[in-house]
Every structure is written in structure tokens, then in C-alpha cells.
């Protein structure tokens, strides 16, 4: 076990119209892990992230980022929403979208300047999208859009990264490029939490995993808990997957 706890969730319950989507979740995510959240559709994976980021108000429970409420720790956290959650026809460029990542540290009213622009360009370079910096975002392919979103998170220079299905609708090359960047982040001591769908790649990509289906089924190192027993508990059916260790 690693010692420092990056994210701590206690007794978290979230409900939409009185129907619980997350029920009494306790979760401790140690610093420096690359963690997948897996579970069937409607298991509350995105909701868990949104609740941690205070985008959704829980009806019970508390959340701490390095021991303090999220509102005090915003600058330590970067967030990549689902690609489908925004309108890609919005009149703006790839560079401008990445610049949005700097808005949090700027605070209200202050405008981004040269320093922010330089950081955004560096982030674009890291995800291999520098040559597309002035491209209108609707002119980008799905994989390129996802890279732009990743660059926007990188520019936040956070300690914890939350990503909601970053591999959805991207080709294999982009998937590898993204996972390599995420692994680099982990190497640099960052904590990365990813909502993930492809169970086959969990052992290969991640070192930590949380099984979720409204309630928390299990959480811990992939090597110890990524097994048929937990998969069956989470998905309700005997879920055979190839685990290459």
C-alpha cells in the first residue's frame, strides 16, 4: 500500500429524483495510481466523478482531496468530461479549447496571456496536435478531439486527473498515445482516475481498479482484485475475460 491518500470518499450517496445512483460509497485512492473505474451502464461511474468534482450535489456523504474539500483544492484537479458532452460545432479552435484549461488558475475576470498560451502550445505538442492548433474543433476527427481534451487537462498541471471515457470513439493509435501520456503522468507521481469500458485492457493499462455498480463492489490493486469473482459481482453474470499477467 502506498501511504498518502489522494482522494477520500466517505458514505457518498447520490440520487436523481429520489432514485439512488450511487449508494453509500466509501473509497480511498492512494497517490500515484492509475485507476480504472469499471462497471455496467448506469452503474454511476460518471456520476461518481461528477460528485467528487462537486458538479453534482450528493444527498449524503463527504469528499476530500488530499484531506480538504474539493472547493479548496480545485487547482490540484483536472477533469476531462465525456467527449459527447460538448457541442463540437462551437466556434473556437483547438488552441483556444486547450487554453480553457488555464481558466481555473486564472480565476474570475483575469484573461489568459502569453504564459498561458505557451503552456497550451506545449500541451498540444505533447499530445501530437500542435500542427492542428488553429483548426476549428468541428474539423477534427474524434480521436483528435479527445487529444485536445487531454491537452486541456495537461495544461492545468494538476496532481489528480479525472477522465470520463477518454477511449470512447478513438482509433487504436490515439488510444495508445493517450494511455502512454497517462502512464507518464503516473510516473511523475500524479494520480489518474479513468472511467473505462474495455475490460480486456484493464490489466495492461491500469494498476488500480474500482468495481462499481451503484454500490462499490471492490477497490484495490489490479493484480489482487481484478478477478472473475469481482467481475461477476459487478456485472451480475459470469464475466470471463482474458487477464494477461
Amino acid at each position: 500500500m502506498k501511504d498518502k491518500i489522494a482522494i477520500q470518499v466517505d458514505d457518498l450517496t447520490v440520487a436523481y429524483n429520489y432514485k439512488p445512483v450511487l449508494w453509500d460509497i466509501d473509497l480511498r485512492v492512494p497517490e500515484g495510481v492509475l485507476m480504472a473505474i469499471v462497471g455496467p451502464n448506469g452503474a454511476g461511474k460518471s456520476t461518481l466523478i461528477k460528485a467528487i468534482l462537486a458538479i453534482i450535489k450528493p444527498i449524503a456523504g463527504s469528499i476530500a482531496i488530499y484531506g480538504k474539500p474539493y472547493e479548496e483544492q480545485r487547482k490540484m484537479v483536472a477533469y476531462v468530461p465525456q467527449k459527447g458532452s460538448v457541442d463540437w460545432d462551437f466556434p473556437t479552435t483547438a488552441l483556444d479549447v486547450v487554453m480553457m484549461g488555464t481558466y481555473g488558475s486564472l480565476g474570475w475576470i483575469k484573461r489568459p496571456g502569453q504564459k498561458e498560451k505557451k503552456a497550451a502550445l506545449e500541451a498540444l505538442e505533447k499530445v501530437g496536435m500542435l500542427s492542428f492548433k488553429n483548426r476549428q474543433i468541428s474539423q477534427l476527427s474524434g480521436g483528435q478531439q479527445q487529444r485536445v481534451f487531454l491537452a486541456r487537462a495537461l495544461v492545468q498541471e494538476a496532481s489528480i486527473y479525472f477522465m470520463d471515457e477518454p477511449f470512447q470513439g478513438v482509433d487504436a493509435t490515439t488510444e495508445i498515445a493517450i494511455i502512454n501520456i497517462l502512464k507518464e503522468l503516473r510516473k511523475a507521481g500524479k494520480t489518474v482516475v479513468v472511467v473505462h469500458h474495455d475490460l480486456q485492457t484493464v490489466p495492461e493499462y491500469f494498476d488500480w481498479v474500482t468495481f462499481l455498480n451503484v454500490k462499490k463492489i471492490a477497490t484495490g490493486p489490479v493484480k489482487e482484485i481484478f478477478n472473475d469473482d469481482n467481475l461477476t459481482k459487478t456485472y451480475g453474470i459470469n464475466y470471463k475475460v482474458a487477464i494477461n499477467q
Partner: protein
Amino acid sequence: MTSPQIEIQIIACIVAIACAIPGVFLVLRKMALISDAISHSILPGIVLGFFLTHDLNSPWLILLAAITGVITVVLVEAIQKTGLVKEDTAIGLVFPVLFSIGVILIAKNANDVHLDVDAVLLGELAFAPFDRWLVAGADLGPKSLWVMGTILLITLVLLFLFFKELKVSTFDAGLSSALGISPIVMHYGLMSVSSVTVVGAFDAVGAILVVALMIAPAATAYLLTSDLKKMIYLSVGFGVFSAIAGYWVAHWLDASISGSMTTVLGLVFLAVYLFAPDKGLISVMYRQRQQRTEVSLLTFLLHLNNHSEENERHINHLQEHINWQKVRSRTVLDLALKNNMIEIEDNVVSLTSKGKEFTDLALEYIITNKDEKIEFMKDDFFLFRG
């Protein structure tokens, strides 16, 4: 031009600018219909405000009516949140009720007040110069000029201060919230500014036509640019142009000024919709035609690539084989010849080395979908542009 004429045009321009700015964000947030709802449901606010102040330009009336506008938004969202009806239904439920309360209030009390539904809905810009602001006998100009000027100034200051916040909360509410820029605050801020603008402008152009001034310039600009700042400048430009052009159209036709302004707005949108360079109808149709030809060309080249036997490449055989009509075959053949991709010898068509290279690249692109491989071909061929 007489001085009232100049004043009318100045007021029209200020109204147009003040409407165009919130309009851009309403259009981008897909909330155009909300502005329509606000424009109607402020009626009870205006009526109540008028009973209290007896002055259509009083700041209290504007504030009161603007609050009705915000209440509209709150009610629409509350109904929508029940999950029983969709947003458009919720809008359709809320604003007629509020509007009709206003109509009843006017009908019950219209005997002793100078206010009627037509005036609120249609406005009359021509009268604006006659309602002047007099302070200790000194004429400071038309009241509506001061009212709309103030509203415009506030809008500009807010836009300047909160441009980045408006942008991020409009584009990505989730990120905005996570960054600590509350999308709810921005939403209600925008709704308040829109409500105040609608109330301030109804006197000049009428509550209904305000909607045209908010939505049409933004929708027109949206077709022309992919840059938010440019979209705002263009919207303002279209608004001002339509305001002045509309005034003179009304002058020639001896018709309603606000009606003419809105008609000009509609015509400007139509023209841009037809002729816009990228998103315009004509350019889209042209591009589709080009693409069809290019796909045909590619099919043709692939066919040549796949068949070495001469009978498959005979010029007459091609026509019946690929199943194209004469004209189409001719176009494709000409295009291929013009680009030196094929050569014809004794009516047998074969690929040139350039044609072979092109076909291979195109094939690779179709299979791998890798953009960088064909980057250099993009200028010549529509097919490969994004």
C-alpha cells in the same frame, strides 16, 4: 436628414448592438426559444411596473419586468426538471400564461392608463424621439436613447469582464463547474442581461421583434465564422446594418420601422445562408457535386488498378461496366485525363504512374484514415478536406 431621423437611427443601432451580444450566447447555448418566451412573459412585469411608475422608461419598470423574465426561465426549468415534459413544452406552458396575465391586467385597467398590447408587442420607433428627458428645463435627448445606451454600456462591460467565463460555461458546463466558474451563475447572469435588454428594447422595437434582433444577427454570423470573437463582431455588424437599412426601407415604403428592420434581418440571413463560403447552401451543393465526381474518379481509378486485362479497360466497356451514364463517364474521363492520371491508347485506358500513385495513396487513406498522408492533396481535392 432631420434630427429626429438621426436620433431614430442612433437608437435603432444601439438597440441592435445591445440585442446582438446576448443573442450570440443564446444561439450558441441553443436557447433562442427562451428569448421568445422572455419577450412575451415580461408583459405582466411591464404592466405592473407601469401602474406603479406611470413611466415606460422608468428603471423600476425595467427591473420589475426583467425579474418577470428571469422568473420565466426559473419556471421553465422547474417544469422541465420534473422530467414529465421536454424543454420546448415547458416554454410553451409558461410564457402564454404569464403573457395572458399581462393582457388581462391591461384589459381591466386600460381605461385610465396609456398602454396597450399592440404598443408593447410591436413598439414604435418613430415616436421614440418625442419622449424626451428634460432636467430642469434642459433637453437631454430622447429617453429611450438613455435607457438603451445604459443597458448597452452595462452589457459591454459585463461582456468585457466575463468573456472567458461566458465562453467556457457555454462550451463545456462540466469543466466550467469543475474549474470553479459556476455555470449556474453565468446562466442566470446571461438570462438577466437578456431580460433587461428585451424590456429596455420593447419600447423601441416591440417585444416580439426584439427576438429577431437577438437571434437573426447571431445565426447569420454563425454561418460565417468559427471564431467566437468574430461571431460577436459580425453579429453587431449585421444588427447595425439591418437597423439602418431597415430604417430607410421603412422610409421609402412608409411602413413600420421595426417591421422593416426585421425584414432586412431576414433577407441578410437568407443571403448569407445561400452564399456563405463554407456553410452556405450553394457552396455546400457545389462541394457535394465535386465530391460525387471525385468519388466517381476514384472508383474509376480503382477499377483500372484492379484490372490488367484489356477488355476490362476498353473505353466502351467501362461505360456499361461501371454502370454510369454517358455524361458522367465523360466528366470522369476528362477529369482523369486533365490530371494526367490515365492515358488512352486504341480506346484502352491505363493508369499513368501519377494515377497509380494517387490511387495507392487514396486507398491507404480510405483504409487507415490517416490525415497526414494526404495533407498535400487537400488543396486539389474536396473529398479529402476534413
